[in-house]
């Protein structure tokens, strides 16, 4: 995993609550054995009509969304399936962080293991972000802060271990493997 330190981007707003992982990447695109190339199917059923043409009214298909790396979504983003294809698809598309008041547990954990940044914030700031799409946002992992143009700079929480792994590009498997002796001893007692 590459280190992640800062993300600077205009915000992309998808205000719906409870966006589930079947919307992020529908199951029919999970018949892959690799992590690559999922971005083209991100939000497929919202981006494209039944003939495969882009739906112009959907935010990702609008010109001002091009290049946006920070998604602001309604409450409870990423609920549903445990598919890690959801953060893979977002990253492959070019989105690097999601901001909401609530983010579903499994999606949250999967995201951090891939360098995708899930951020939970307070309702007031969230409301402001939803009402002001396209603002400049600077996410600083070292400071655990979000600087929002025209609003304020606020802190967010991330557990210290995930922060350390993100900043240093460390794969969490190495941490478990460093405790081989403890695992061996645990198994002996079974």
């Amino acid at each position, binding site marked *: 995993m590459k280190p992640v330190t800062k993300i600077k981007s205009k915000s992309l707003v998808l*205000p719906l609550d409870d966006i589930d992982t079947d919307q992020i990447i529908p199951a029919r695109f999970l018949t892959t054995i690799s992590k690559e190339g999922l971005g083209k199917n991100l939000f497929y059923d919202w981006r494209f009509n039944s003939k495969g043409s882009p739906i112009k009214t959907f935010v990702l298909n609008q010109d001002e969304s091009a290049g946006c790396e920070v998604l602001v979504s309604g409450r409870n983003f990423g609920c549903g*399936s*445990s598919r890690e294809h959801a953060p893979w698809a977002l990253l492959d598309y070019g989105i690097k962080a999601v901001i909401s008041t609530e983010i579903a*547990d499994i999606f949250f*954990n*999967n995201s951090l293991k*891939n360098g995708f940044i899930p951020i939970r914030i307070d309702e007031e700031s969230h409301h402001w972000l939803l009402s002001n799409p396209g603002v400049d946002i600077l996410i600083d992992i070292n400071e655990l802060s979000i600087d929002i143009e025209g609003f304020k700079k606020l802190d967010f929480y991330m557990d210290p271990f995930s922060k350390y792994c993100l900043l240093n590009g460390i794969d969490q*498997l190495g941490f478990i493997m460093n405790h081989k002796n403890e695992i061996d001893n645990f198994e002996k007692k079974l």
Partner: protein
Amino acid sequence: MKTLFDKVWEKHIVVEETINTPSIIYIDLHLVHEVTSPQAFSLLRQKNLKVRCPNKTLATMDHSIPTTPFASLKDLVLVSDTPATRQLVQMEKNCHDFGIKLGGISSAERGICHVIGPELGATQPGKTIVCGDSHTSTHGAFGALAFGIGTTEVGHVLATQCMLQRRPKNLAINLSGNLQKGVSAKDIILKIIGSIGVDGGTGYAMEFRGSTISSLSMEERMTICNMTIEAGARTGMMAPDDTTYQYLIDKPHAPKNDQWDKSLEAWKTLVGDQEAKFQKEVAINVSEVKPMVTFGTNPGMVISIDEAVPEPNKNDEAFIKALDYMQVEPGKPLSEKKVDVVFIGSCTNSRINDLKTAAMFIQGRKVAKGVRMLVVPGSESIKKQAEKIGIDKIFKESGAEWREAGCSMCLAMNGDFVPPGKLSVSTSNRNFEGRQGGGARTVLASPLTAAASAVNGYVSDPRIFLD
């Protein structure tokens, strides 16, 4: 004073969590399927790692496998060389290369991962169980600590038999009373999700307690624990009791002889202490629960069958979008909705008792004209049991299709799907937009409600058919 969760969790801590690092938790059983594991096996190859405990790893093919009959994977490749088929071929190779036993195409032990774990007796009280699938909480019905994980974590568990976890908070769901006729376990869990919301359990381990549980079969308990993720909780648990032990005693992977007695002694300690503290508690009197049906596009958008679709709040964009997608109107009941497809199956409701319930209802009746009804047993073993007692014939005579085991129409990645715009009454667990196929509209319900809807041709209350 400890919760059931505390007791199982604490027995599996390899390294305690600190402010800076999560716990390392030992995993007793790892279920693996073809969709969420290929990239994990790639990681192992890349890092030149082995699977640490192949004997604690149980592999199956369920998600992307067709439910039409075929003799072998080679035959399938010949007729249908699709990405889904290639995923199955890769699964066979991965299991072969890493020495994992696979319940493959021709295996009598193949089935949906959350169906075969219990029926083989690999699922046991007090175990930690993980799988790259969010419905792993199903196994919590046995007093196991079971949760869904992502593919990176599948790789961690394959390589180390351990995973990193922060301790969740505890949520008690206290169930009292007895179910009314025509109402089932599925209705209980839909009621719970409707009450606490699709994120009501986020950050929590859910523990079911109360007098109702002892009256429920293992199948019913599994249906309830299966859908805890739909309320955001990563796991759901119930303390084991005599029903649990009776279910397990003759299963192939269950402990035998002296080992059984020893295990039983340990399992009997797996009850949450009466005074254990929970950060949140919810009480449900199940005798007040009626048959439940979803009207929207997540499992929390649910009503009793005799209720009308609620009015949306003006600013609730997601709610308005859901009603529009589902083509339902506020103020009207779902019973006016014509049904196109009925699906009985999935890790929620594909066990022998689910099929029996639906079959008993449908016996001597016919699936309504214009309705396609698909019955998909959860495993090869269930299929065989059902055929032995003639359940397959009952369904076929009524006009339903009887299929091979698999996830099937629950997630539409295996050839079974609901056509765009069509309405499905489904015993599965998710009614998300497009879940059962692009544009498909899903109403989640119990096997009994699904069977009644198939016969009536409209979303139907099964109680009107019962004496």
